[in-house]
């Protein structure tokens, strides 16, 4: 594929701007000339370039995308249409001019409170990890105000890497708690680790193995007795809608991923949104700003510090609210029901030929190990071969506690036929691994490009076109 720079020739114009009359008041020594590295390309070429690039992408709209803990569900189109009503307000406009925008914040906060049973939400966090940071500093704010200097956050070994990274960013030391043979937090090890230096436990529920942490209430009570808090990573909330209220589990803080559970598109890695909900006693310690209503007008009020500019990834919030409003409570309940049904069904179809990492019952996702094929092909080989069958592979090599892990989350937006076809493809690859392992090891064969050399990319990093020109002479 050509890069945009390779279409450039002097005199081409992709967008016309009339010369503005007038003068500059910036001294000459502070001005720069045209930026030589930027291309000159016509609109016609820009459009065909990015169109050609686009068709090299796999996407949810194209097909099955069973990335575990990523919840790659279908992104409803009406949500995009609705978001287009809300693109042009400046964030610093006087509040009385933007009451429609503020009402959306308010309605989404109310909806998330209803869904989780928690007391207050901030919609500001820009992504899940940003929510984790926000939630943990909320706990820290509370503790510090109560004269407590705790320094540890406990995190199970099955947790997503953002959990320990966020705890560290919030100034805590992350201490790992091992999983037991059922794939849940090892309760004894947890009790051993729990002391007056622990600020919180970050739990993902269901965890990244798809297993519901059955002792969560007991864990919460132990934490509370020790003066610590229970943080829940809500990445896997798609399993629980309408089934449980998170507040009933003893959770003090949760972040939700609107780009997972609430159907907003992932955009190739973002934007996301990671609202944080808390119990009543933590509400005053949430970063701001928050909405306040008086005389029928919604206004912003400062909170405890700030975690980003303005108020959040607003367009993501609109889309999530549209989704919640369309489905309603009953529709959301059905989402989780079918998400779990699809996952359990697919697990059943695969468990004859593949090894399920833990025998425990799972909810919306499950994890396979490489035990039944590792002597012939690797997990990576299998993933790459799935591409040839037209499927995006599951999350691979995560969670870290499962050897050669394949983490499968089908979501509710896939048909039984798709699940059956995916299971057939998985089995077919196992057969190929017996009969013709080369075709698997050299996969993919039908993708726009062949298997990419990631080692070389890291050894001699070329991160810009300028660098490429320099190194290629």
């Amino acid at each position, binding site marked *: *594929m050509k890069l945009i*720079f390779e279409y450039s020739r002097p005199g081409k114009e*992709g*967008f016309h*701007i009339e010369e*503005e009359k*007038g003068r500059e008041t*910036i*001294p000459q020594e*502070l001005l*720069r000339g045209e*930026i030589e*590295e930027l291309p000159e390309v016509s*609109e016609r070429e820009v*459009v065909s370039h990015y169109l050609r690039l686009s068709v*090299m992408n796999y996407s949810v709209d*194209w097909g099955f*995308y069973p990335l575990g803990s*990523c919840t*790659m569900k279908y*992104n409803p189109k009406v949500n*995009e249409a609705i978001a287009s*009503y809300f693109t*042009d*307000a400046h964030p610093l*406009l006087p509040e009385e001019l*933007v009451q429609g*925008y503020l009402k959306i914040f308010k309605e989404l906060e109310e909806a998330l409170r209803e869904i989780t049973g928690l007391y207050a939400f901030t919609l500001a966090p*820009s992504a899940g990890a940003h929510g*984790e940071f926000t939630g943990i500093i909320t706990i*820290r704010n509370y503790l510090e105000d109560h004269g407590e200097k705790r320094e540890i956050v406990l995190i199970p070994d099955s947790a997503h890497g953002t959990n320990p*990274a966020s*705890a560290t*960013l919030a100034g805590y030391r992350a201490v790992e708690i091992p999983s037991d043979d059922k794939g849940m937090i090892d309760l004894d090890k947890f009790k051993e680790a729990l002391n007056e230096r622990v600020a919180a436990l970050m739990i993902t529920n269901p965890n990244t193995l798809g297993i519901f942490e059955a002792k969560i209430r007991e864990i919460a009570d132990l934490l509370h007795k020790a003066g610590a808090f229970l943080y829940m990573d809500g990445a896997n909330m798609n399993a629980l809608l309408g089934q*449980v209220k998170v507040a009933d589990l003893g959770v003090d803080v949760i972040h939700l*991923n609107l*780009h997972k559970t609430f159907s907003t598109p992932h*955009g*190739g*890695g*973002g934007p996301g949104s990671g609202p944080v909900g808390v119990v009543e006693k933590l509400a005053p310690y949430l970063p701001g700003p928050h909405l306040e209503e008086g005389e029928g007008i919604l206004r912003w009020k400062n909170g405890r510090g700030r*975690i980003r*500019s303005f108020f959040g990834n*607003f367009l993501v919030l609109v889309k999530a609210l549209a989704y919640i*409003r369309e489905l*309603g*409570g009953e529709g*959301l309940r059905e989402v989780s029901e079918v998400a779990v*049904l699809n996952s359990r069904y697919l697990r059943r179809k695969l468990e004859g030929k593949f090894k399920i990492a833990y025998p425990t019952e799972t*909810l919306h996702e499950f994890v396979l190990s490489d035990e039944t094929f590792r002597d012939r092909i690797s997990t990576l080989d299998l993933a790459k071969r799935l591409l040839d069958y037209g499927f*995006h592979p599951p999350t691979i090599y995560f969670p870290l506690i499962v050897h050669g892990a394949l983490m499968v989350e089908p979501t509710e*937006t896939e048909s039984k036929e798709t699940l059956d076809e995916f299971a057939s493809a998985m089995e077919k690859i196992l057969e190929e691994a017996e009969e013709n392992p080369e075709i698997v090891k050299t996969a993919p064969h039908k993708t726009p*490009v*062949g*298997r990419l*050399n*990631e080692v070389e990319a*890291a050894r001699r*990093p*070329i991160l810009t076109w300028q660098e490429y020109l320099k190194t290629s002479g």
Partner: protein
Amino acid sequence: MSRYIPVTPQDKEEMLRALGLAGPEELFSSIPAKLRGKGEIRIEPIKEEGKLKEYFLRLSERNKFKDKKIFLGAGAYNHYIPAAVDYLAFRSEFLTPYTPYQPEVSQGTLTATFEYQSYMAALTGMEVANASMYEGATATAEAALMALRIRRGNIAVASSLHPQYRQVLRTYLEKQGVEIREVPYRQDGRVNLEELGKIDNLSAFIVGYPNFFGIIEDLASISSILKQKGALLITSTWEALSLALIKPPGEFSAAIAAGEAQSLGLPLAYGGPYLGFFATMKKYVWKMPGRLVGMTKDSREERGFVLTLSAREQHIRRQRATSNICSNEAWCAIRVAIYISLLGKKGLRKLALTNHRRAVYAAGLLKEAGFTLKFSSPFFNEFVVDVGMDAGKFRDRLLEKAIVAGYPLGKDYPELKNCLLLTFTEMNSRKDIEELVKEMEGIK
């Protein structure tokens, strides 16, 4: 049954049978009975698409700014977005994939992101740029954290850095036990170099470029002071278009150029999603936060792109990662790549020049009308004007004339309570500017 769920009631029955379950409630039997079954969500559905749109259309009608002439910037800018940007960016192939972990089916996102990185490196005059941060304030905070990984010490920040960015910096740094020193501005609105010179044990100094008053700082002098101290220069730019006209941070030996790229193809959207940019020098690449796309070859010896140097990131290094960032603003970066491709070398500079000249035009008219510009230093497309009375009240009175006259500075800078920050882009016509000045004159 929801239109987004392609599983029929008959399918459900078959699947439950295959699982040996009597009913769907048994799917959740791994949840302890005392916690289960209490999750009912009381929200009424709006099942018909037309009615759903109607509902949100009604909400949007509560907004009352469409008929106003708006001269607001201060971190978010109203620029024209060419039609081709939306047309391309909203393709499902760009909008609905996940992070490109499988590069063989993600070359679209990866290639466009590589182009974005190249553009941001060029715009900032730096050697490398990452694939995006959340927005300008967190990008700036991450820059401070990175500086501390390079050199321990204090972080100093210009008091003319965006007030919200300073608040975010405080949130991020206080948890690390790092002290933030504020360096005041001089009478001309630029950083007080003498005060900067007094700070010892400095890791890095963060300065807005242009600063919150729209002023182009004297980076050459700042840079030479920092060099003597062995401290790093971090610039933060929230009007990224300015970098198409003024000398980039890279020319002043900046270690990190961070900021907000909303100006380059993203709608105002009441504050987000926006796009944090983050650029630095090659020697610091392993200290960088965020994703990076690199060039490589595939098994057919063809050029291709992958996520690279990921051993810096949380999914590999966990608590020792350079940042906790995972989901970022990838789609926004693709928009910026498309936008800059369209405007190109000539268009981007021309547009920046238009913005500056409109602001100069407005400043001229205001001076003629007897208003005082608070600061004498050069500005890009926004500046501070003293209106001789409480600026908030002044703005309220102009609102009655359907004008939003910028941002009153008193809340963030009590000493500037009579000052407005006025912003002018290509979207503010000369006629509108004339009207603004006329109405301002009427109140004065």
